[in-house]
């Protein structure tokens, strides 16, 4: 009963239940109003940040082969580690805007081609060394160098010149880009002493914690950074365990060995949430599960065939059955409401008649081969089978070929004309489109070559009037929706869970995993 009342009080504080309802429920448990009020007050007190203690998290995605070099980071574990010890120039804020980190403020020229970042004065790296503009310039240079292996190289390609001007950093672009500050918030671009050229994996930065114990792919321990300038980080110690097995990760939370886990499997999230000492959090994100067709390869080079397949998929069914409801319906563009300049398009629904009509129009006859594998997204083979069924009702014959997980990204994705895949999303529409839908994009995995679309993208990038930009993006979404090779049935939510030993988890920034990676810094230990 103790647990139950605590649980109810927690709900009341979190606003999931009214005070009156709480008192009624407490009365039902045989607790007087006075005692209940005290309990509520105590629970409310626990809602204020407390310093000290250890927050332990178990995350998926780490591997023994990982590196501490931020340039080579690709997974959530790497992101969380970077967040501990380092910071980029700027960061996304909770409202979808940009706020300063190592840079105190920034401003763009009127044509958005030159950007000036003013560095925060008097801050130091965790080794006590002062942060200089040269360090910042060297960091940006390391990631934009043509020889670089950095995951941020694609973002940095448009940079013409990086220079130090007094205590400022000035970035000059080849083509104007009103979103440059968003690009600078990329987690790879964490400021390191000397740009990290000497020791890229030394993990020395301006972050709130210092890594004390590193066992790649296994376990990490971080302690508070005595030189940290900001106010993040309530716990004295953070401990991060890599647990890739879904069941083991959930069990670790249930048995109280960790306080925070990511990627709760949607299938079991409902069950997990029923435990009194566990809260499951759902954050909508820009990540989406897709079926991609090469627009330049037969039979997918036919717009009617593409439309037939788009009408042949039952999006709601996929959200219900593959995501167990932890997600939202997609509309054949990579953009959803988690983007700042999103505009809603008319939703395309499952329509076997229209699908059959477009199939007939296309003149295509015979089976259509779809390749899939489990690691293209969780449940992809099942999703493919559902797609096959819904298409069959429209007379479209989809054949499924199951590919091995190993080598899927090198042998199938971006090589075969029709396969399942996923996208993690990007902070801005410009970046998402530039990465995957510009004709010349490296990862143009739908082989979408549309001159008008390309021109609009460049125009929107240089446009500083937000209303005009929003309109251009809406039009671009419409083009992709009608013409593109992307079938986007669903956006997957991030499903994360915490134990009641910790508090402070908020949905945070729309579209970002684990409060944009700041969950352990903004949470605190309650007991």
């Amino acid at each position, binding site marked *: 009963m103790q647990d139950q009342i605590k649980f109810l009080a927690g709900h009341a504080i979190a606003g999931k239940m009214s005070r009156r309802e709480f008192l009624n429920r407490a009365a039902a448990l045989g607790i007087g109003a006075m005692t209940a009020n005290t309990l509520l007050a105590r629970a409310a007190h626990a809602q204020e940040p407390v310093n000290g203690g250890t927050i332990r998290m*178990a995350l998926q995605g780490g*591997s*023994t*082969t*990982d*590196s501490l070099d931020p340039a*080579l980071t*690709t997974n959530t574990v790497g992101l969380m580690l970077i967040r501990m010890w380092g910071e980029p120039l700027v960061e996304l804020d909770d409202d979808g805007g940009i706020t300063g980190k190592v840079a105190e403020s920034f401003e763009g020229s009127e044509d958005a081609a030159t950007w000036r970042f003013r560095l925060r004065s008097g801050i130091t790296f965790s080794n006590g060394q002062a942060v200089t503009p040269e360090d910042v310039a060297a960091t940006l240079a390391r990631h934009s160098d*043509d*020889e*670089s*292996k*950095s*995951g941020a*190289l*694609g973002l940095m390609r448009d940079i013409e010149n990086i220079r130090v001007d007094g205590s400022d950093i000035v970035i000059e672009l080849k083509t104007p880009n009103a979103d440059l500050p968003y690009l600078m918030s990329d987690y790879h671009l964490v400021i390191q002493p000397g740009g990290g050229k000497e020791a890229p994996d030394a993990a020395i930065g301006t972050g709130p914690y210092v890594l004390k*114990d590193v*066992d*790649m*792919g*296994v*376990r990490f321990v971080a302690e508070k950074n005595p030189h940290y300038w900001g106010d993040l980080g309530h716990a004295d110690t953070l401990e991060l*365990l*890599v*647990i*890739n*097995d879904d*069941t*083991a990760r959930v*069990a*670790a939370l*249930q*048995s*109280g*060995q*960790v306080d925070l886990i990511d990627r709760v499997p949607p299938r079991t999230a409902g069950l997990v949430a029923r435990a009194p000492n566990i809260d499951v959090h759902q954050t909508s994100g820009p990540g989406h599960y897709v079926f991609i067709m090469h627009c330049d390869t037969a039979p997918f080079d036919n717009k009617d065939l593409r439309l037939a397949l788009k009408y042949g998929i039952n999006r709601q069914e996929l959200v219900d059955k593959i995501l167990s409801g932890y997600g939202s319906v997609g509309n054949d563009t990579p953009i959803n409401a988690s983007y700042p300049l999103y505009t809603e398009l008319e939703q395309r629904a499952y329509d076997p008649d229209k699908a059959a009509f477009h199939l007939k129009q296309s003149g295509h006859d015979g089976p259509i081969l779809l390749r899939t594998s489990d690691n293209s997204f969780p449940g992809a083979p099942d999703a493919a089978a559902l797609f096959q069924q819904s298409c069959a009702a429209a007379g479209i014959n989809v054949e499924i070929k199951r590919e*091995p997980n*190993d*080598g899927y*990204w*090198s*042998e199938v*994705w971006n090589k075969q004309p029709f396969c399942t895949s996923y996208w993690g999303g990007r902070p801005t529409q410009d970046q998402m489109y530039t990465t995957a839908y510009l004709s010349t994009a*490296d*990862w143009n995995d739908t082989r979408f070559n549309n001159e008008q679309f390309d021109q609009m993208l460049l125009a929107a990038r240089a446009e500083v009037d937000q209303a005009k930009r929003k309109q251009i993006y809406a039009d671009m979404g419409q083009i992709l929706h009608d013409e593109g090779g992307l079938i986007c049935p669903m956006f997957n939510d991030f499903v994360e869970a915490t134990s009641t030993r910790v508090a402070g988890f908020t949905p945070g920034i729309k579209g970002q995993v684990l409060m944009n990676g700041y969950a352990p810094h903004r949470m605190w230990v309650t007991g």
Partner: protein
Amino acid sequence: MSQIAKLLAQRVALSLILLFFVSILIFAGTIILPGDVAQSILGQSATPEALANLRAELGLNEPALTRYFSWLGGVLHGDLGTALTSGQDIAENVGKRLGNTLFLAFWAAMVSVPLAIFLGLLAVRYRDRWPDKLISAVTLTAISIPEFLIGYVLMFFVAVKLGWFSSVAMINDTMTLGQKLYVIALPVAVLTLVVLAHMMRMTRAAILNVMQSSYIETAELKGLSLFKVIYRHAFPNAIAPIVNVVMLNLAYLVVGVVVVEVVFVYPGMGQYLVDHVAKRDVPVVQACGLIFAAVYIGLNMVADIVSILANPRLRHPK
């Protein structure tokens, strides 16, 4: 005596030759894996430039034969090379992981081997009566269930529901021996259940086999108690097959625990190997493969040597 030495030398030489051929197989096997390491490191975020830069840096452009011989030469000098993905020294990393795996295997063996032999003896003592049937039924059931299922079931009931043991068996250097033993309790239990039946059945069968011999009959006629007959006369003669199956299971405890390590997040060789296979980190995969092969071949060799020493008839091949 020189006869035995010669036999043993032959057996050791055979093992080394076998190991050499295994090294060729391992190398060839890793070469034909689809994809390459550069692509796998960068994953979905690989741009052609980044890919080319990484390939050049990792020396992937050299011919396979050159890489094989330079690798073999290194191994003979005790140098396993550096991991392509992290640039760390493999021997150092593997040493730590192998230590962990051996630690787990050791405790699993400490529990399972005596238990299996004891249960085997007990089964013979009460042959065809209920203790024998119960022991067989329980151990055979345990071996028939997949390891991950046993693992999950134990995890759910013992760790999550009862809270007796830890569901995460992540040991680290700061722990005392007692803490380590506490956190590895569940994986040790799973491994014990998995290997118990095999060893128990073999012990039982080997002793029963010996029990048919005429000298056992003599011993019985002398009026010795059944337990003493088993313990003094049958067991020593059954050692060879029992050691054989024990060694086989020890080898399994070292090289076959990938699933258990993943389920209980144990930082041993299994997880290490899986991570590097996924990234096509060929030198590490080769090193692990070679170590696993050496463990297998080595333990089998020990079993054979024990057999040769225990059974005079094997010393005089016809």
